[in-house]
């Protein structure tokens, strides 16, 4: 295999048609939205490119949301405004605040609160009237609305980072999105200062100028002991794929948890005083 790759490299056949195009030339800091993760920003040559559609893809619990919230937080810290088009209303506001997002500078566009795989009529938030439809119709409607909302936000301009969350959209609904949709999105943001980010279970847009960050994550627990175990974070492997920017590579980062183990023992007020303990109840009961 190594010999084959070497031979291809000698004959300059190790590139696809898109990688043979000229390298993306904008090198100044303002040409990218930094994620504020030093190792990743270094690999990405500054961050996610502005004026391009990038993707963060991976399975559930791979750290997609953590990375996106970190990107938005970095953007709002720099004084920019950001937008999150939340197709199925999945954003946890406490997680967003813990990530360091200036919530006042984040435009949150909430789609219908659809539970996974349920009839839309029974699971919609009462404030939105979609009527009784089948689940797939409801998901398609939510996806279309999210795309329209993203178009409106992009056309308004002025946003440093616009995120479209398709992470929980079923593959069937994703396959029904015409590929020209992404070309239109690319056309809108082309030349602007907005970095558009798509979260999805697998690559959808495959933009030539943008990046695809493919994530694989493993959550970390404190110990093997039942008594003291809690979630501390995740090790996230980020594989960078970029057709034109030549920043392909792999980076490992660590995300820290803001989960039950972090915040529950510190809770005050509403929580019953008897359970102000960091030791899980069952484990404590099982330990004589």
């Amino acid at each position, binding site marked *: 295999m190594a010999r084959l790759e070497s031979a291809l490299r000698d004959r300059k056949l190790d590139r696809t048609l898109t990688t043979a195009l000229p390298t993306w030339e904008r090198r100044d800091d303002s040409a990218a939205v930094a994620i504020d993760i030093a190792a990743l920003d270094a690999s990405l040559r500054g961050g996610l490119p502005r004026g391009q559609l990038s993707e963060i893809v991976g399975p559930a619990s791979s750290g997609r949301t953590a990375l996106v919230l970190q990107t938005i937080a970095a953007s709002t810290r720099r004084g920019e405004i950001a937008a999150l088009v939340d197709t199925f209303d999945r954003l946890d506001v406490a997680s967003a605040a813990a990530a360091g997002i200036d919530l*006042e500078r984040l435009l949150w566009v909430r789609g219908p609160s659809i539970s996974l795989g349920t009839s839309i009529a029974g699971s919609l938030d009462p404030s939105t009237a979609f009527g009784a439809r089948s689940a797939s119709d409801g998901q398609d409607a939510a996806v279309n609305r999210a795309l329209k909302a993203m178009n409106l936000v992009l056309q308004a301009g002025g946003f440093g980072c616009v995120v479209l969350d398709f*992470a929980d959209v079923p593959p069937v609904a994703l396959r029904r999105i015409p590929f020209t949709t992404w070309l239109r999105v690319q056309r809108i943001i082309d030349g602007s200062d907005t970095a558009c980010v798509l979260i999805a279970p697998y690559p959808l847009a495959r933009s030539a100028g943008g990046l695809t960050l493919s994530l694989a994550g493993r959550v970390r627990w404190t110990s093997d002991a039942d008594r003291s175990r809690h979630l501390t974070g995740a090790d996230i492997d980020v594989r960078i794929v970029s057709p034109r920017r030549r920043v392909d590579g792999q980076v490992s980062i660590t995300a820290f948890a803001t989960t039950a183990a972090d915040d529950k023992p510190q809770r005050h007020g509403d929580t019953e005083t008897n359970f102000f303990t960091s030791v899980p109840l069952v484990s404590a*009961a099982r330990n004589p």
Partner: protein
Amino acid sequence: MFAALYVARGSSFETLLGVARDFSPRIETCGSREVVLDLDGLTRLFGDAKSIADEVRRTAADRGLRIRIAIAGTRTAARLFVRDRAGITIVESGNDAATLAVLPLSLLARISHRNDPNDPDDSNDPNDSNDLLTTLRRWGLRTLGDLAALPADEVAARLGQTGVAWQRLARGEDPAPLVPSVPEERFEQALDLEWPIDGLEPLSFVLARLMEPLSAHLERRDRGAAVLHVRLHLVKRDGVTREVHQRSLQLPAPMRDARTLRTLALLDLESHPPSAAIDRVVVAVDPTPGRVVQFSLLTRPLPSPEQLSTLMARLTALMGEGRCGSAITVDSWEPGVFDMKPFAPRDSHDVRSHGPQRLRDTENKTCLGDIAASAPRLAIRRFRFPIPARVRVDLGIPVRVTSDRRGISGGKVETYAGPWRTSGGWWVEDIKKCWERDEWDVTLSDGATYRVFRERDTDAWFIEGVVD
């Protein structure tokens, strides 16, 4: 040259204002019975000062008013004379101080306030003026000339700035330039339609026609719209019944762009359409001073309020009321609770103050930025309505989690942590706000990590979200 008009108690002040406006656009109201006019340029229209005074008095008489008129070189002199003398008083230009010298000192107490001290609506307390007047009388001063003749520095040393101000008034000097009173303008446009129109598309053309002159009017007055009112007069099918469909839009920032105002009105009417055909359209705005924007070379400009308002209106029309905006954290431990507010980001250079405080903030920000950098936080992807789950429990520990919902494959629990018991809201009457549950973090055999919880009162299990 200035004229002071003083009307008898009980007469209509509005009528007096109307008389004054008939002669000059530059008028200043002084209390509820007195108006001062700037007469510059009127001599070419009416002749000398006497002719002007006669004409003003005749016009007032035609409208049922009996007024005093005094014309002098300064406003102060005119006001003092009109308070002292009935009928018409004309003071030759340059003789103000000499003519004023004989007037009694008590007049100063009456004009030293902007409002009339005799007016029962007057909120100023004249006690200070009376004290000063008593002091001056104790010094043996009786006329304005007596006060004007005193050395200014000695007056300042003994009476302070108030004494100096009184002395300047006694000399007939104006304390400030005339500030013209601008009549309250109505920013309103209306159009009667020959034939009733139905639907929003034809209405958009009508609105465009109305908004443009309205916008131009606002621009001329350097005003912006704070509230936009749209009144549609509807005619029912029977052609007789009429009703008014009224909408008011609170705008987040003063704006006067015709296209933006029209778009906002149309988007609002899309959500709240009129119930019948329209035969009259009225558009009005509540004006507010125009917006002054200082742009920065160092920060990225935010979208203008017009752009943001239009965007928010379009998004609200698309996604529904309350589905777009900024999230607010709520001071509560109730899981997943939050609130929404309109999206209105401030300019980054507005957020911080200038000077040392700004520097300290920058230092803090840098420190926090260093801490925050390279430390992403795992997040929860929260199901707004928790998903019911089937959980097999062994010795109080969940060992298998499954759900009927597509998208959650479920499986054997590989690793777990918990439970963390929380409860709250039991002190409020609304049972929906009460919770009592045990939370677990579980990693299933499908590789995903979920937060699940058991409701203690029903013993039902739910999936709250995915750790991602």
